[in-house]
């Protein structure tokens, strides 16, 4: 009977984390494969400029792997990773501001092609643009809670653990965000 669990049999995130901490490099690669797209989507929605997205994704992953020993499974790995991404994005915005750049990160310039009716595509693109504008108007906490909940489908307990708040407070942040976004998007 083999003692070692083969990595190929869909290991859990926890198993991959343990393997990485044990020195298995490919475990990190698998974690990247699993979560990098969600991270990129989160960062892009949170306001990361497209040109910087690759760097921000890498920076977030590097930060996460370097502090993985401190991850205690208090929330899902992805939630924890996205929270680190939020911090990396804030740091990048601060750096941009100190260099004299715009505090609000630029929005995507292109309308998202929906592949349907051109008029509806344009309207959908406009709605997304408004949503993105609205997200930039939220507090960082409201924005992160909203995206973790609405975009990533995380539950409040997980969000609270990752962001260092309570589930009740996370719920309040979400509702504040939804209320403001509805006003902006409509």
């Amino acid at each position: 009977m083999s003692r070692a669990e083969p990595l190929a049999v869909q290991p859990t995130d926890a198993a991959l984390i343990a393997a990485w901490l044990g020195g298995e490099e490919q475990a990190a690669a698998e974690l990247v494969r699993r979560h990098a797209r969600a991270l990129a989507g989160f960062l892009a929605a949170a306001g990361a400029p497209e040109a910087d997205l690759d760097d921000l994704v890498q920076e977030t992953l590097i930060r996460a792997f370097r502090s993985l020993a401190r991850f205690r499974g208090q929330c899902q790995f992805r939630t924890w990773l996205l929270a680190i991404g939020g911090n990396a994005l804030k740091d990048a915005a601060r750096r941009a501001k100190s260099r004299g750049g715009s505090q609000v990160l630029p929005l995507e310039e292109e309308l998202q092609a929906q592949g349907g009716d051109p008029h509806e595509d344009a309207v959908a693109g406009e709605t997304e643009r408004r949503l993105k504008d609205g997200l930039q108007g939220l507090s960082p906490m409201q924005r992160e809670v909203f995206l973790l909940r609405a975009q990533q489908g995380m539950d409040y307990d997980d969000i609270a653990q990752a962001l260092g708040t309570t589930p009740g407070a996370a719920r309040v942040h979400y509702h504040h965000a939804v209320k403001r976004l509805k006003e902006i998007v409509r």
Partner: protein
Amino acid sequence: MNLGDRDDLDDARLRELAQRLGARAADTLDVERTAAAVLERLREAPARRRMPIWLPIAAGLVLLLGAGVVWRATHRAPAPAVAAAGYDLKTLSPDQLRQLLQVIDQPLDVDSVTADDTTWDDLTAPELRHLLAVLEG
């Protein structure tokens, strides 16, 4: 979504929009390239334990406190003799301590000191030094 429908935007619609937001960026991300780049960067800076940010701050505070303690120890007036004498009193016998108490309990006027002169004679030189230290403290 039609422009006229915007007023009816509900939570579900907002969630749908949020999910679509950033989807294109996510789709265009080259995951394999990202994984390779991350591994490469991790190899360049091996998985060493990064020093927690509070550690240098705490170390600085400890150094400052230590320097402050050393400075105070070297610059302030000598410590009250009472403390040192208090420690040394432990070396006295019960009888000697009683004698000492009697002396200390006397009112500090010339007459009483004179009247009790005999008591002083019972004390040895080191004991007198202790007593002086106490009285001067």
